[in-house]
């Protein structure tokens, strides 16, 4: 091969390699948009308490309450209108999807000393 051809060949190979390197790097550092890390969306009801007492979730999350207590409870937002479960006996569940950001305090309407909060960001 004449030296000019060798030079051209080398340049092309180098260019190809660097393009490959760039694309590999780009792929490695590329993030999928709109997918946050896994968050807890479960609240357990037991021993006359909501656990965790305060739960922080992103907008659009469906939170599920499960009653593990041996006495029925309810899940009612403080304003008594945003969400309101029926009576939850042991192992019953209630879900609500939070579509708007904000702080949502709630309580058990049968045992009002039981309170909790969902913070939606």
């Amino acid at each position, binding site marked *: 091969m004449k030296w000019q051809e060798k030079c051209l060949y080398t340049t092309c190979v180098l260019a190809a390699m660097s393009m490959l390197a760039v694309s590999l790097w780009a792929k490695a550092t590329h993030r999928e948009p709109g997918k946050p890390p896994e968050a807890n969306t479960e609240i357990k009801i037991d*021993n006359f308490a909501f656990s965790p007492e305060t739960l922080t979730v992103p907008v659009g999350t469906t939170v599920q309450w499960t009653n593990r207590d*041996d*006495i029925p409870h309810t899940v009612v937002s403080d304003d008594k209108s945003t969400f309101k479960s029926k*009576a939850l006996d042991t192992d019953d569940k209630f879900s609500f999807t939070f579509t708007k950001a904000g702080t949502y305090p709630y*309580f058990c*309407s*049968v045992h*009002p*000393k039981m*309170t909790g909060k969902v913070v939606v960001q």
Partner: protein
Amino acid sequence: MKRQVKDEIQYDHNHDGIDRRGFLKCMAWGGTGAFCAVNGGILSSVSLSGLSVADAKEVKGQLTFAQISDSHMGFSKPANPDVVATLKAAVDKINALPNPPEFLLHTGDISHLSKPEEFDTVDQILRSCVAKDVFFVPGEHDVIGDDGKQYLERYGAGTKGAGWRSFDKNGVHFVGLVNVQNLKAGGLGSLGTEQLEWLEQDLNGRSSSTPIVVFAHVPLWSVYPEWGWGTEDSAQALSYMKRFGSVTVLNGHIHQTMQKVEGKITFHTAASTAFPQPQPGQAEGPGPMKVPPDQLRALLGITDVKFVRGQHALAIVDSKLG
């Protein structure tokens, strides 16, 4: 079987050597209620199960009635898998009394989940009671999901608002109050402005020598606020009553007998006919307390309260069974 009964006089303000034999002795029982006799203005109450040893003459008075509470029909967890049996046993006890009560007071938590079949079952069981009139007040378990609509349909005849009422029997004025509606987050039992205004009007103008009996589900005194065992606005209600010579407040909700005296007002809570609950602060929460099955019916103690109008002397005899 010989029962060991321990007697203690807790209060003897008159130091007049009150004869303990004069008191009605009771033994507690899982299906315990309270039996009350009004005799010349003296109100005495005993738990049902021991009345077989009571002197029938002493029990006879101008007025007799019984209190049962917290039947929680529909509950079926280990603390008591058969609340039907224990309620029936309470009724059997009432029916076996030498001087049967003229009527019953049920201080709420009739049902466990406000389900129609639960109310139906209690009504059916109570139909076999010799006392045909039953006056109810709701517990928080009776008004779940419908703000008490079903409760009022069943038991609201003759009541106002959320189910409060008053009536007179042989010169004694009875007031049934509702303190389980419109509960607020973090709060206790609540009477509300409308009911308080009604109560003030109801008591207004009555002679202060009229014995008053108030019955409501949640205690009207602060038993243990951490567990919701109290009523936020009861102080105002009690202020309307303090001029009367004899006031007895009968409550439920805490599933154990407890009493307290404040001036001329005696507070008494009844045991449940369904399951016991722990004493204040003795457990993580106020839930059903599990005991070995053979101890369930023998767990509760008895409460015998006798007070003398005008002297404010109060003798309380507590006995535990087994």
